[in-house]
């Protein structure tokens, strides 16, 4: 059995003169939550469209769950999607809509009813089950759209901007939902909100201009095991930095009042902390790794 839930290899897609995908290659592993991050126009939505067969690639290989390119007859009940900016049918109510999609996914009427109730509960929409879609707020519609993507037990879930338009409380519950999917489904989440990725994803894929600029486990990309970042209350003098260097602790100023250094064999984070505290520097925060934003910006510049 393939451990890869979704694989793109050198995929190209053009819209007229625009090269939306220019050799996109990546892999989403089974049971892993992966974040797809990139600027507007980087090719994220086209990636989703190609992955779900809405758009046909010009060249390259797309493999979904080891069974070739997406085909609803093969993947219909095991792959689900939350497309971006797509309107739900306006005149049905939340319950009818989820019931319909559950039936389309191959469930019996009874199974569909049960599943609908579960998903309404999960997305806190039980009280609005009888409301027509057009009567729901933007956030509620988004939750309903997320709910339809969670019907059944999909092996691959593609979520395009799942937290867009949600209030902070719902963002938190959405993150809980994403975390709960770990180990059960492969999830590819496209988002601009990096804190969502840091909070929920195991792996990240940075994309720009239709290709991957960097990918890997979140801990590797942010160097969580190798990089120590220290925030201090005042700038560290050259003398203190030189003394630290003498102890093989090479501190680099990364931002105002922020210094980082890469751990070498046998070192740990407390070495730098001890060196600075010993020199009378007030350290206000110690973090392992660099912020995802920094890793992302670096990847975009490379």
């Amino acid at each position, binding site marked *: 059995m393939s451990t890869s839930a979704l694989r793109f290899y050198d995929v190209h897609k053009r819209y007229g003169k625009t090269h939306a995908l220019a050799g996109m290659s990546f892999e989403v592993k089974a049971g892993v939550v992966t974040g797809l991050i990139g600027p507007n126009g980087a090719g994220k939505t086209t990636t989703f*469209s190609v992955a*779900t*067969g*809405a*758009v*046909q690639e010009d060249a390259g290989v797309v493999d979904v769950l080891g069974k070739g390119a*997406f*085909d*609803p*007859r093969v*993947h*219909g*009940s095991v*792959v*689900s*999607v939350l*497309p971006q*900016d*797509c*309107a*739900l*049918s*306006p*005149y*049905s109510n939340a319950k*009818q809509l989820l019931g*319909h*999609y559950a*039936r*389309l*996914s191959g469930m019996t009427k009874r199974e569909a009813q049960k599943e609908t109730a579960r998903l309404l509960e999960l997305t806190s929409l039980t009280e609005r089950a009888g409301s*027509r879609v057009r009567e729901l707020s933007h956030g509620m519609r988004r939750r309903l*759209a997320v709910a*339809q993507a969670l019907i059944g037990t999909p092996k691959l879930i593609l979520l395009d901007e799942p937290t867009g338009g949600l209030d902070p409380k719902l963002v938190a519950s959405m993150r809980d939902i994403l975390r709960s999917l770990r180990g059960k489904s492969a999830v590819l989440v496209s988002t601009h909100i990096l804190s969502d990725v840091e909070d929920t994803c195991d792996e990240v894929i940075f994309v720009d201009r239709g290709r991957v600029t960097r990918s890997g486990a979140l801990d590797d990309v942010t160097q969580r095991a190798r990089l120590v970042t220290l925030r201090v209350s005042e700038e560290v003098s050259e003398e203190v930095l030189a003394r630290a260097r003498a102890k093989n602790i090479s501190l680099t100023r990364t931002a105002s009042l922020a210094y980082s250094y890469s751990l070498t064999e046998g070192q740990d984070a407390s070495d730098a902390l001890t060196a600075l505290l010993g020199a009378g520097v007030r350290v206000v925060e110690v973090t392992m790794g660099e912020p995802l934003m920094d890793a992302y910006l670096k990847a975009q510049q490379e």
Partner: protein
Amino acid sequence: MSKASTNGAARFVRGALHCARFDLAESLRSRRVLIFLVLYLALSVGSAILFTELLQAVEEELALQLLVARTDLPGSMTQAVVERPEVRRVLYRFIRDNALVDAVLSVPPIALLFGWVTLTFTPLLVVLTSSDAISEEVAAGTARFALFRVSRGSYVFGKLIAQTALMCVGLLLAALGAYIVGAVQLGSFEPVRSALYIGRYALTSSVYAFSFLGLTLGISQLTRSVPWSRALGLFAMVTVIGLERFLVKGKLPQRFPVTSETLCQVLPPAHKLDLWRVTLSEMAPALVMLVALGLTFFAIGASRFVRRDL
């Protein structure tokens, strides 16, 4: 047939029926379908009322000419009206088939009117109400929630089923309206014969309009622009009707009779006249051809839809 292909066909039909049922329910929940049904009813009832008024005026004139007492209820002298040689001559000019003229003149007048109105206007109503049935959902992205669950073929076939059902509901309502107006307004109303003929014309009109529905939904699959699908639907309908007129009445049939006749066969209006024939065996070729044309137009659109980017 192998088990796999049987399962595939069963899945296709199941998906299409789910899509059709949901589309029909969604239409019934929207106000749009009310407008659609009101249009059918208004057309049928309005034309029936106008017709009975016209019939009354004709009968009054006839009573004057024949020096008999005029009646208050229109239709009391219908038989006398239809037996007038002028009426037969006018009909013959249009039909050019004596057997068909006899068949038409034997039909109860309200049913005759209903048949003429629905055969003439249902294609237009179908184009107006169904031309964006697919393009609108593709444009709004609504289709994508279904299209990763069922095949595109299944989805559009479901749309065809739903729109056909809606059209039939509209025609049924129109038939009911015409029947009630006839029963109330006409003096010589024959309840059973009128019901049978109105029912029959509702059926033949639905088959005739189905060919336009196939054309309209075929076009709706080619574009994701709602205004374009509406404009193209109307354009296609006008073109088909105009082309048939041209092939029948223009100079082409005189110079190239076989070509004209052959080309005509793929145009629904060329089969319209045969829908007035008396027996089913006479009508059957036209009915089969119209269904086949509707399905062919639809399938041409579908063959593009299943491959194009959404």
